[in-house]
């Protein structure tokens, strides 16, 4: 009898442990809220409908695998709901843990100077594994610029320019001001939202906001 009680108790404790951890695992850790952000500023990179009432802003780091995982979701979201919302991208390079994140942000800005920010943004996420851990990432970034037919001389100069460094710093500082501490972090009309767990969830969050705004 005692044995049955003991082993039943053990089975219960193990099952409870698994259940608890799965529940905990389903939660998103980024549910801290901070002050709202200014939804758009003139220096922001944005796409979609610039007149839309719904603005989705992302603080992102090109080297962050989670941002890479969200990239296809956002691309699809922009394709399907681009007419009803504006999507804003802001840099939040986690320099302490991602050695190439800042350089990648500056490379995207430099490509933006030649009108190809979004094309470059896509290239960085699609090839994230190729350059993330490379000590010679700069050469890879120049190669990407070449593949987009950019002026590589200008691209290299811009990447190292003070102006672009300040732009990246400004984005980062605006995130810090709103308690951003992880990437990606999303703001819907300036208010921080919990990271949706799937494309469907993301889509319904945006659709709900569109419905409420009309």
């Amino acid at each position, binding site marked *: 009898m*005692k*044995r049955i*009680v*003991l*082993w039943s*108790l*053990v089975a219960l*404790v*193990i099952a409870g*442990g*698994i259940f*608890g*951890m*799965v529940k*905990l*695992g*389903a939660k*998103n*850790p*980024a549910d801290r809220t901070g002050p709202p952000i200014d939804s758009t500023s003139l220096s922001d990179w944005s796409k979609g409908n610039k007149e839309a009432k719904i603005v989705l802003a992302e603080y992102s*780091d090109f080297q*962050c*695998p*989670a*941002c890479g*995982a*969200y990239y296809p979701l956002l691309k699809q979201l922009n394709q399907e709901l681009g007419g009803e919302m504006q999507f804003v991208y802001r840099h939040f390079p*986690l320099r*302490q*843990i*991602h*050695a190439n994140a800042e350089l990648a942000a500056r490379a995207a800005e430099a490509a933006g100077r030649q009108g190809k920010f979004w094309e470059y943004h896509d290239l960085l996420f699609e090839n994230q594994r190729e350059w993330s*851990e490379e000590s010679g990432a700069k050469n890879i970034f120049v190669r990407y610029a070449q593949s987009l037919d950019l002026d590589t001389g200008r691209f290299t100069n811009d990447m190292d320019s003070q102006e672009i460094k300040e732009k990246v710093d400004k984005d980062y500082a605006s995130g810090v001001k709103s308690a951003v*501490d*992880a*990437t*990606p*972090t999303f703001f819907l009309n300036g208010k921080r939202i919990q*990271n949706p*767990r799937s494309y469907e969830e993301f889509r319904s969050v945006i659709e709900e906001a569109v419905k409420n705004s009309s």
Partner: protein
Amino acid sequence: MKSLEALLKKQLKTVPRWLVWGFIALSFIGFLDATYLTAKHYLGIPINCSFFTGCEEVTSSQYATILDIPVSLAGAGYYLLIFVLVIAYLDTKKERILYFISRLTPLGFIASLWFLYLQLFVIKAICLYCMISFTTSTLLFILGLILLQLEGKEIAVNKS
């Protein structure tokens, strides 16, 4: 839990009680930690990148899975095995189960050292949950060494 305590009081003449509780607590913490990472893997929810956990880098790296099976699942199995074996010892009072566990702990320790090396020198990111596992497996290994020492002493006594 009372029946567990009663069992503990009855035995443990040669094996200190704290050692057995240590095995139970550490293996259970390790099991919860590894189960959490496994759940994250299968639920497909990316752990955010942040200065504090560094986990997304580690758990999404090529080293986090072997043949599509997350290493955290193997970790959960390892800790669960130790947990169940300690309970089996409490149930059957057979000390050789404990000595078997002590021979099992170097496996977990070596695996943890390998993962620590990968985090520090290859992935260059430290995942908090992996460090919890490193701590539990190291402590289990130390408890295993203490047990082995006790076993050595016991054998010496038996021989004389």
